[in-house]
């Protein structure tokens, strides 16, 4: 059982390039990231440059931010081994209450938002109670919720459309304001881009420090620099595009909410105790419980949290469409679930990341947007989206059964010819089984 020992090589070694985006690591979402880049480039060419025009990318963010917000909550639910089908109905239910609160009960816009979040939390607590403490499968609880909250929306709103006031609309339609000298772009948007780049640098430095502590296989410095430069450049170009749109537009407020949530929830899932516990319960509930994890509390938390995010998504949608209607949020649950699975989560739980799900959601968003730009009929769009979901997860499953790490890992290995040398940590993944199944790889069983 000779375990391949990874040694850091000095100097410039082109083979290290495969470590650029998670070579051998667990960063599966980078495979999907590659797919996203390909899809963007494809549509950019096909639509004759329309895809990456400022107006269009602003539109994409506004139109899909609420699905991406749902995906954040959904990935946590799915990691814990559950599913939530009620998010669209919860969003609609919250939307109508918030709209009525402002119209009939004279709530100011900020109080209405707080009310909306409270409603989400209460609904989440209700569903979490059934899932965690009664033990009804989440599929059933949220299927019931899907009916209950949809009916609730139509009952309270009398199946009518209720408009919302202009101040409230900012969370769905607003943009970063113009501040400071006129430099030919929106200053705050560029500043946001710079902040994101600084965060990227910080994460990279931190990652290197952690790896150094383990005395293991830190990548060459130039790899880290290259990675930061590439990602940083993408962020800055994106920021520039957002900052130079039609006068009066810039990075949307809903996008800001999304970015804050992505950063916050990535941190929560990776670096906090509750985050670790979600993975532990989803990965092996019994082992987690025997390690002192209160799995009921974890299940309650993910379900409750999902509904709060659904409420937020519902409010952003209502703000953007300027009114709450009886059919808001229909089919959202499926978009959110698709995003999560394209982003590499496992149906059986325990696997998935916030970042991956966001990228998965963006894949779907760019795809829908690009097809719409080309004037493809919506029936065809649905068929294409369905096939993309199937193929994305199919490739993922296939790779897993072959013991391969990710799409990108596969591509780089082939690109470099015989580069799969003994220092390739991915080979450890296919170390053959030993005497007991403990050491056995997921065998490529027949059929």
């Amino acid at each position: 059982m000779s375990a391949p020992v990874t040694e850091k090589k000095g100097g410039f070694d082109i083979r290290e390039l495969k470590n650029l985006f998670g070579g051998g690591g667990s960063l599966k979402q980078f495979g999907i990231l590659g797919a996203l880049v390909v899809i963007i480039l494809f549509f950019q060419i096909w639509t004759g440059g329309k895809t990456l025009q400022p107006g269009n990318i602003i539109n994409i963010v506004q139109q899909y931010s609420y699905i991406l917000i749902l995906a954040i909550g959904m990935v946590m639910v799915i990691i814990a081994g559950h599913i939530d089908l009620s998010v669209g109905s919860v969003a609609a239910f919250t939307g109508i209450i918030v709209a009525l609160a402002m119209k009939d009960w004279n709530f100011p816009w900020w109080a209405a938002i707080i009310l909306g979040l409270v409603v989400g939390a209460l609904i989440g607590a209700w569903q979490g109670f059934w899932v965690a403490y009664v033990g009804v499968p989440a599929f059933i609880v949220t299927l019931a919720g899907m009916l209950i909250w949809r009916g609730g929306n139509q009952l309270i709103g009398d199946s009518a459309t209720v408009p919302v006031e202009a101040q409230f609309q900012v969370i769905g339609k607003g943009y970063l304001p113009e501040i400071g000298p006129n430099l030919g772009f929106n200053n705050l948007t560029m500043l946001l881009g710079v902040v994101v780049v600084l965060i990227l640098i910080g994460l990279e430095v931190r990652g290197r420090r952690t790896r150094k502590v383990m005395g293991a296989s830190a990548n060459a410095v130039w790899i880290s620099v290259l990675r930061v430069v590439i990602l940083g450049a993408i962020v800055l170009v994106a920021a520039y595009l957002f900052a130079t749109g039609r006068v009066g537009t810039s990075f949307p407020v809903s996008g800001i909410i999304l970015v804050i949530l992505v950063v916050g929830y990535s941190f929560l899932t990776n670096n906090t105790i509750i985050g670790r516990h979600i993975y532990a319960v989803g990965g092996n509930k019994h082992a987690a419980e025997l390690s002192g994890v209160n799995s009921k509390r974890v299940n309650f938390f993910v379900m409750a949290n999902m509904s709060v995010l659904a409420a937020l998504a519902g409010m952003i949608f209502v703000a953007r469409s300027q009114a709450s209607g009886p059919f808001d949020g229909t089919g959202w649950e499926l978009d959110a679930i698709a995003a999560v699975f394209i982003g590499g989560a496992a149906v059986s739980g325990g696997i998935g990341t916030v970042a991956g799900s966001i990228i998965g959601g963006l894949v779907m968003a760019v795809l829908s947007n690009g097809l719409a730009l080309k004037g493809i009929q919506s029936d065809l769009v649905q068929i294409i989206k369905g096939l993309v979901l199937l193929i994305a997860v199919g490739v993922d499953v296939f790779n897993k059964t072959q013991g391969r790490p990710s799409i990108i890992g596969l591509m780089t290995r082939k690109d470099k010819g015989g580069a799969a040398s003994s220092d390739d940590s991915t080979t450890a993944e296919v170390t053959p089984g030993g005497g007991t199944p403990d050491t056995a790889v997921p065998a490529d069983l027949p059929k």
Partner: protein
Amino acid sequence: MEQGLNTAPTILEMQSITKEFPGVKALDNVSLTVKASEIHAICGENGAGKSTLMKVLSGVYPFGTYAGDIVYEGEVVRFRDIKQSEAAGIVIIHQELALIPELSITENIFLGNEPGRGGVINWVEAQKEATQLLARVGLDDDPDTQVKNIGVGKQQLVEIAKALNKNVKLLILDEPTAALNENDSQHLLDLILGLKSKGISSIMISHKLNEIEQIADQITIIRDGKSIETLDVKADGVDEDRIIRGMVGRTLGNRFPEHTAEIGEVFFEVRDWTVQHPLTAERLVVKNSSFTVRRGEVVGFAGLMGAGRTELAMSLFGRSYGKFISGQVFKDGKEIKLRTVSEAIDNGLAYVSEDRKALGLNLLDTIKRSIVSAKLRKISKADVVNEIQEAQISEQYRKSLRIKTPTVEEGVTKLSGGNQQKVVLAKWMFTDPDLLILDEPTRGIDVGAKAEIYGIIRDLAAQGKGIIMISSELPELLGVSDRIYTIFEGKITNELTVDKADPETLMRSMTSSSQKVVA
């Protein structure tokens, strides 16, 4: 088939089998010759390549994915899948049984091989044949019984009945007795011997060397993917030490660590512990059990499977099993409450489960995260985990416990059984326990890793921790413990210091409650 052993015809010859996975040579020029009516054992450490070899033989790794020839009954065979190897009479029984718990014995036996016509099953026929098959394996249960309602030992027999139904000529058994108690094991071994006398050859993979010594005719030893030697048990006068030497390539010296225990005062005491079965109200799985543990002491718990050892341990550890009825726990003279697992951990208890994969580890996790998972608070501020500390700590354990891995960022699934067990031990050592309950700590682990685990256990005791070690292997209990309790039917039946204990005495107390001892 009726010839003597030495002149028996060869049934199987695997010639220079080489199987490569990307980057790793799992099998390197392995040869194996099995004669008709022979029990052929394959020995080797975990990861040596035994299972891979059997997967090549049974067509799990189809022809073309390996180099070398398989000659079976005089012809070169090229199996493309399991169906083909089974049609030729080669049946493999995996360590983890492949029966469907909700189906009856009959249904399981004929699964994938149903008698009948045009897709319609002839149940009368099936029933009749099942009864005959069960008689051949010595199982007198009703063939209509659901498999989930019979014990593991009987399930193993059903597997063999299933193999017999396929007209097996060469039976491959992967760790057949790993989950069985002594009685069931013996029954199974007798059955394998019985099959041999009827002309059915067996290949047996086992870590239990005494069993191999008892029934095998030939032993092939595999080490690091190479076939090292084939021994004739009778002619070569093979004993356990000889096999171990071949497996590890060195003499292992004393398998159990030399130790002089510095035993302190009693610090942990359980009084009148009684636990009820989780489903059946009238069934008590632990009855009025009282025992003590001293600082720096390894206390062994001997009992057959189902005697209540695991139930006792798990019910103590935060009531993880069954329904608590009565009993008190004292630590350092004060009564403590252990109502939840977190309470147990906070009170300095740790429980290493007997089922590493189902209860011990999150197999999707990395080594690093697994090691700190039972006490994240220790490296967290305001519920935020300090990843630098996490890396430092897991790295320390990797070094001190010699966990074989390139980095602690690897997934735990990539480790061998022994190394996974070290990760579980590290996970619990990280919680700074005063009392470690180790439930079958060396199950499914190879000889070399076992010795290391024993060393770790004695080290922990030397640090003044109390250890409870539950084990089915008496030599292990006698080699590592300072004092041994025996359990039978949920009751503690005997207590012996290790110098007064011997296998016979223990076995007697493990199989009857007649010996009453004042605890």
